[in-house]
């Protein structure tokens, strides 16, 4: 079996070149100033100092608030769906899970454009309201439109892992709980919920990661004033041209996320 040990060698080189080096590049840029050339090193902490300004702190706070809100909403809406699916017959389980995943194969941007057409002031929903004789509602470029877009795009990432852990669950445990006199609520809280925690944590990680760093959906559905951390990074690279500051923000984002993930992993292992 020793023969296979060498199989990881190509990937070690690959990972070093295309995972580790890029991360080092970001750190390098974050701690240097001016110019987009790597050869002119001049160490600085200015890029981080700049970030301490209240505007940028607000951007981070706003991004995390939105990320947390989206994640909670996805959990609240996704858990029941995953639960219902896991209680269906095997055939319909596979079918329903397929239905949940198909939208993810359609271009995310296209789906977001469709939401723009649905939600805009003269959009499809408002046209329908008008036909029914109701007053139009302004929905585009608000928290509402952004959250609709995020939840619609990211909820499947919550549903799938929760469904996976629920479907793996030994059904006899639930029967046992009933037999031992637990009511429905107790059974759910003490047995089902407990056993689905790994899936829930996985889902939370996925959705939070995606929603906290997104920049396309807020830009399209929230307008230019909907500035999140992802947008801030994008503008630094694409329009302002300050790659050093952009790298510093990316680094801060990456560090916060990785700390968060560590925390979740810890919770996960504790549960086990």
């Amino acid at each position, binding site marked *: 079996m020793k023969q296979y040990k060498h199989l990881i060698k190509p990937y070690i080189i690959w990972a070093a070149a295309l995972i580790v080096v890029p991360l080092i590049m970001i750190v390098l840029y974050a701690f240097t100033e001016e110019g987009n050339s790597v050869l002119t090193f001049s160490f600085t902490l200015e890029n981080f100092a700049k970030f301490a300004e209240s505007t940028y702190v607000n951007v981070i706070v706003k991004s995390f608030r939105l990320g947390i809100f989206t994640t909670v909403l996805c959990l609240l809406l996704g858990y029941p769906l995953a639960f*219902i699916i896991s209680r269906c017959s095997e055939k319909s389980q596979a079918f329903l899970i397929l239905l949940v995943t198909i939208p993810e194969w*359609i271009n995310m941007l296209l789906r977001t*454009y469709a939401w723009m057409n649905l939600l805009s002031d003269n959009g499809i929903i408002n046209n329908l309201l008008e036909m029914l004789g109701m007053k139009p509602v302004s929905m585009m470029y608000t928290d509402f439109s952004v959250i609709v877009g995020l939840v619609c795009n990211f909820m499947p990432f919550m549903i799938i892992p929760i469904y996976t852990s629920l479907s793996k669950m030994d059904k006899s445990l639930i029967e046992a709980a009933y037999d031992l006199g637990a009511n429905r609520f107790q059974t759910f809280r003490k047995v089902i919920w407990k056993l689905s925690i790994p899936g829930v944590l996985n889902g939370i990680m996925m959705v939070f*990661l995606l929603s906290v760093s997104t920049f396309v959906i807020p830009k399209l559905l929230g307008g230019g004033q909907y*500035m999140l951390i992802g947008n801030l990074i994008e503008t630094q690279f694409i329009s302002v041209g*300050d790659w050093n500051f952009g790298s510093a923000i990316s680094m801060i984002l990456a560090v916060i996320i990785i700390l968060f993930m560590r925390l979740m992993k810890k919770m996960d292992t504790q549960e086990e």
Partner: protein
Amino acid sequence: MKKKKSFFARFYVVICLAFFYLPILVTMFFSFNSSKSLTRFTGFSLRWYNELLQNVEISKAVYVSLSIAVMATVISTVLGTITAIGLTRSRKIVKEILLNVNNMPILNPEIVTAIGLMLLFSSIGMRKGYVTMLLAHIAFCTPYVITSVYPKVRSLDPNLANAAMDLGATPFQALIKVIVPLIKEGIFAGALLAFTMSFDDFVISYFVSGNGVKNISIVVYNMTKRINPTINALSTIVIVVIIIVLVVVNLIPLLARKNTVNMNHRLHHVIGLAAAAVLIGVMIWLGAATNGKHVLKVYNAGEYMDLSLLEQFEEENDCQVVYETFESNEMMYTKLAAGETYDVLIPSDYMIERLIKEEYLQYIDWNLIPNKKNLMEDVQNKSYDPGNRYSCPYFWGTVGILYDKTVVDPEDLKDGWELLRNPKYKGNLYMYDSERDSFMIAMKALGYSMNSTNFDEIEEAYQWLIEQRDTMDPIYAGDDVIDNMISGNKAIAVVYSGDASYIISENENLDYLTPDQGTNLWYDAMVITRDCSETDLAHAFIDFMISEESALSNTEEVGYTPTVESAFEEMKEGDYAGVSSYIPDTENPNNEIFGYQEPKVKQHYAELWTKVKAQ
């Protein structure tokens, strides 16, 4: 218990699925619309499918998306699988380090991964395009393959391969015949995940691609300016294909079970052959694409050219035009600074001044451009490039206020730019998400020069914008303002004159105003880069674009004001008769042209603008 819940549960499932499928159904539905509108259905037609077939940009993008997804899937699945197998035999420390590194792209936000890769490619001087995109896709797909294959390998009995080898199998045979079939499920799941991630990727491709190589997502993203239902037609086709594939994939196991193992085997061969055929096809196409012809690389703002002109130019000159678009002058500059090479650029005045100062451009040889005689006097010899030594004017115009005549009181128009702070129209206006134009408005409203470098004046303008933001709740829109104003979503918008002409031609309730306080008089012009290797072709291109016929069809298509006299006169009397935005106001002494900004001043503006937007 199940039965009792049934109704409510079913209802909930239906609601959730409706929520997921609503945007998709809307997309499909409007692909059959006979008009361009994406909100009002005017009648059934297959018009957009027809246009899809003729749209070269989209078919190239489909090809790029598909071929990259297939190759990235194949390579990352092989790489990921052998790594996962190797990992189970490695020392603990190696295993842990590698697994942790492998987790980085999964745990890191996509945008961070994208930026890291972009920095890597541009600092080693790699030409951005197909290869960088493929490398990046393999880089972010492989970790997912490893995470789905590794647990399966770990759960195998380590003695299995040994047993096979004891029975005379070579290590390779043991791998293929024993191990791989046992972890088939994990490999399949990983490959599926890789394909999905790659096919749908936007963020990473957006940052690492270049030189005209675009996947579907990038094309869609560039379409914001004037959303085009052809892309709806494309997604309808994608959906139908996915459904067919799913049906086939779900039917095959049923059929295979009936027809014994043999069938299953044959099927594997078929799939393998198909994959190989696709790969070979890709290689051939890649070889053919770079074959012989002269290539001219043009970089222009999005939706800013009649694309049929490019085909005509290609035919006349037996060459190939690689046409790329940018969202803003700054984005164009970033790409240029990152080492991408283009032959002809079409930036705005102040950016041209900057490019001249930073020596990115070369002189135009006007002897090679006989059509220069077509240019009007008004657009030549401007402050950004005195004597037009570097640039040939392309389109020109102003920035102004587009307003709804049925909503805005004519009395209020007298306030000029202050109209944008009139509380009557609170929540009823779009600002343009552009740093320089927004500061221009504030500066002009305050009576300063829009090129001011006086930090006190800049501060005052900043306060003007902050106050406006807080009292008026404006939307800082990008090019989506065009569609929004056509459908009459809000009463007031700041727009470029050319967009105004187009919008007014679609929505008659609107009119355009350039305030007396003055505005930005702008010129976009064609320039040739210093690194241009096809100077003859570049000059031919410029000459072609200012020929009378090209200029006319160009302005007809995009609505901006041409720099060619005859085209201007014809459209002024024709399609755009009476549309005030079509004739730029050159009389007002308060109008200015944007000038070059010192890096320090520029940085200051950029920071303040970020603060205005980030409430």
